[in-house]
């Protein structure tokens, strides 16, 4: 890992030779602002030795102009006034680098989205504002410092925590991509929840066959090392080089280095103690029914399923996604075993989403399974061999005699989620399911680089969904492990240990846990790889000991002073 380079203090006037490039963006800017006047103005600003305007600065010709000027006018700073840095800054930075100028000596001013587009009918004041913006950009550029990208090495090895269908799928895919994998399972055997299930919908394939096939596949791969009855007890380090400790049943510890971590720790079915007469004998859970089906024939003539037991309520406000599907599937299998069995499903909303799931609802209805809606405010009552419920469609109370009641309870996060969350510094949601980086666009990522998520640790999922997510997490992990080296932005925070008093105020505001307190020296320290350059610490530090590179007080103040004119 190499450090960052840069100069402190004011640059010598002779060192500052700024080139300013004003972009017309076709008519997007030039149609509304006086770009000629803007260019003439830019040339008068302190430090500016060259200014010109282009039709499109981002075009090949425009880039050529910048590179030529860097050489001919010995530019030490480049300012481009054009569009949004979000889209075009990387292009201009790399153009500077190609011409031999450190890319961090480049500054961008947005005179399109933030000026010409919002002042389309105010040519004069719009141009005046663009002059202000360019003056501010030039002022900041004066104090820019050269920086070097932070380059770090990585190990091509992954840790997968959890040996259920999601974890096994992730392991399989990673191993096939040529990565070494440590697969850590808390239980004495791989397979997770699925190994206790009966058959998979809709194909009817045996759950045991699927999971045993996967276990065989994974354990036969030489790159996979399985740790059974083991737990991860320590996670340190950063992406590419996570230092982990795995502790097995005998208490022996092994310390390893991995590049990425996949969290596939699963979920457990909720046990409805004290609800709806649950006794584990003739009032059982959906999961217990699966276990019975897997062992053989379930002898019952009158079966009542009750959905949403312990879910979609005050304690657990979520819908467990898979219970309606599982109930419909098992109702079908029970009918297959005994076509004359009376099966009733009492539900609130029947959640057989999608294609095959909805088909199971239709098919089970076709086989004579009855579905009745109940209102959460008037839940069914299980007592003395009878389920009593109110049928709103007919407006009447009804009674169903039973010899088996199946309670569909939700999947819940295992008890050790909070400790895992602390161990890896990864967040959980209000129900203790692990929380992904973005609900829609990054469902398998954590906000922390190099840690990924899949399966029911994220949220209840079917076997197919858990498998897809496991493969997906492997792919996300691969986006890091396939790299030769990791490149991080050098625009990160740095703490001056001469002035830091060790108050640790910055620790609390850092969303990435990138700062640690070093007891020996009594000061705080930033991990340059974990830091994302948000600046929370810099604006919080009471002794102004934290500086964010690229946004130092000197740079920001010069910009603000320039704004004031």
């Amino acid at each position: 890992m190499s450090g960052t380079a840069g100069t402190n203090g004011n640059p010598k006037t002779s060192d500052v030779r700024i080139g300013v490039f004003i972009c017309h963006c076709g008519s997007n800017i030039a149609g509304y602002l006086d770009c000629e006047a803007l260019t003439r103005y830019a040339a008068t600003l302190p430090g500016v030795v060259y200014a010109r305007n282009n039709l499109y600065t981002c075009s090949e010709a425009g880039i050529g102009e910048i590179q030529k000027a860097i050489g001919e006018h010995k530019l030490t700073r480049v300012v481009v006034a054009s569009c949004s840095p979000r889209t075009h800054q990387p292009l201009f930075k790399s153009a500077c680098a190609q011409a031999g100028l450190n890319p961090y000596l480049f500054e961008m001013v947005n005179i399109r989205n933030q000026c010409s587009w919002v002042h389309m009918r105010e040519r004069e004041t719009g141009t005046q504002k663009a002059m202000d913006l360019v003056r501010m950009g030039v002022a900041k550029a004066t104090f820019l410092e050269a920086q070097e990208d932070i380059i770090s090495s990585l190990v091509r090895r992954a840790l997968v925590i959890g040996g259920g269908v999601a974890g096994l799928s992730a392991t399989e895919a990673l191993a096939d991509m040529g990565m070494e994998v440590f697969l850590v399972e808390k239980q004495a055997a791989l397979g997770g929840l699925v190994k206790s299930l009966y058959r998979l919908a809709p194909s009817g394939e045996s759950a045991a066959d699927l999971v045993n096939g996967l276990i065989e596949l994974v354990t036969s791969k030489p790159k996979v090392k399985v740790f059974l009855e083991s737990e991860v007890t320590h996670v340190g380090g950063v992406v590419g080089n996570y230092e982990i400790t795995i502790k097995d049943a005998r208490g022996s510890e092994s310390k390893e280095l991995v590049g990425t971590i996949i969290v596939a720790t699963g979920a457990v079915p909720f046990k409805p103690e004290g609800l709806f007469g649950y006794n584990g004998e003739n009032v059982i859970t959906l999961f217990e029914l699966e276990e019975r089906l897997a062992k053989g024939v379930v002898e019952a003539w009158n079966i009542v399923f009750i959905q949403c037991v312990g879910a979609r309520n005050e304690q657990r406000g979520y819908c467990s996604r898979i219970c309606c599907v599982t109930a419909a599937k098992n109702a079908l299998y029970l009918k297959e075993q005994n076509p004359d069995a009376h099966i009733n499903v009492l539900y609130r909303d029947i959640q057989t989403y999608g294609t095959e799931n909805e088909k199971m609802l239709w098919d089970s209805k076709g086989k004579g399974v009855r579905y009745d809606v109940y209102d959460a405010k008037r839940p069914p009552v299980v007592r003395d061999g009878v389920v009593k419920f109110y049928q709103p469609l007919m407006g009447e109370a009804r009674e169903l005699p039973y010899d088996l009641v199946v309670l569909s309870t939700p999947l819940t996060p295992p008890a050790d989620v909070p400790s895992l969350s602390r161990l890896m510094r990864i967040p959980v949601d209000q129900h203790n399911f692990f929380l992904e980086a973005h609900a829609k666009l990054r469902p398998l990522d954590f906000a922390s680089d190099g840690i990924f998520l899949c399966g029911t640790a994220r949220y209840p999922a079917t076997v197919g969904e858990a498998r897809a997510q496991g493969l997906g997490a492997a792919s996300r992990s691969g986006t890091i492990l396939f790299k030769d080296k990791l490149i991080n932005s050098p625009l990160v925070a740095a703490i001056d240990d001469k002035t830091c008093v060790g108050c640790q105020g910055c620790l609390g505001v850092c969303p990435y846990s990138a700062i640690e307190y070093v007891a020996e020296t009594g000061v705080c320290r930033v991990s340059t790889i974990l830091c994302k350059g948000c600046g929370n610490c810099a604006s919080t530090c009471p002794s102004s000991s934290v500086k964010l590179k690229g946004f130092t007080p000197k740079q920001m103040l010069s910009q603000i002073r320039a704004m004031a004119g």
Partner: protein
Amino acid sequence: MLAYSEVEKVEGDVGDFRVTVRKKARYVDEGKCTGCGACAEKCPTVVSDAYNMGFANAKAIYRYFAQGIPSTYTIDAKACRQLGQGKKCGVCARICQAGAIDHKQEDQILEMSVGAVILATGYELFDARRIPEYGYGRIPNVVTALEFERFLSASGPTDGHVYRPSDLKARNALPEMEKAVQKAARDLEKYEQRFSRTSDDFMAQFERESLEGDDYVKWAAQVKEHRSLAAGLAKAKEVVEKMHGAHRIAFIQCVGSRDIRFNRHCSVFCCMHAIKEAMIAREHDKEAEVYILGMDIRAVGKGSEEYRVRGAKEVGLRYIRTRVAEVTEEADRTPVIWYEDTKERIVKKIPLDLVVLSTGCEPSPATKPLAGLFGLEVNDFGFFKTKASSPVDTTRPGVFVCGCAQAPMDIPESVAQASSAAARAAQVLSGSEPMRLASCKEIG
């Protein structure tokens, strides 16, 4: 990246596919176009804007939407004066400072060798016209959820304001109507000058005494024309003056889904987008009354159920368990929905400003031809066939599928599946084919 392109031929097998792709002519050079939009500004040919569901106009040289990638413009050859109608035009070529317009550009045929293929060809929305009792296409104030999304968008055709489409149509028609009235008035002026009397004065006499002569008959016809146009304009103005945001909005769920006549499957995403759109409609208009009418509200994704509950508790969304029977229309263009409330066992109706149809997810029209090209099976629902234990493997080794090409699913599920398909492709490309081949064959 090849946008605006289609696969035409596939040869070979896993690890060594040879794919022929037609890159369709845009008539704009991708390397030169900077996406500035000057061409579209000056193009004289106005067409309906497909992105805004026809509620706004676009030009014959267009970009499907502002953030589209690549940002290159494309000429709609059929609509273009020069390409489609053989007229002289070339305005775009003259205005383009980058010299990117190329009316002579032709389709390109590209061949490529690939080891694995991922199909992410998406889905098609159900055409609501197929359910005549909901009135879509006949009752103007019945719209689809995607049209409603455009209304809600700040950059959409109504700048984020939700109005009744019938009112919008009336408002948009006003300038033309005003022009017609002015023209009719100018025609009258000619007669008035010629005969030195006002049209009203003349008309009074004409009706009293039935004046003879061609000019008088023509003048009288002209007066009647003007009066009728003016009356029409006054009425339209009255409608526009009374125009207000759509306060009463109902979403009808399962339009084309879970319906034995069309698609038996559930389209997964419609319950949640209805709730989302309802919430946004309430953000825009705190007075809005919003109803969601469906058989089951399928809030099965992470955070979905909590969102559904919040909709009812915090913004007063009303969920009604039913299947809507019919939408009718009153004289003032008010749509009325008819349904049986299954919790109260009463047939009810609600007059509304706007009815939004949550149209379902159907297999893309590209699915069947692609299945033919690649030799893949489709399932009973018309989507690419997979198996629960290999959710992104099609029936052919080395060809994978993700997202709504496989089954209806929401965004996070699609994104997760996309990563799975990438992982499967990586497994194949990393040289573990023999093993994969074995497992793929099992499926077939």
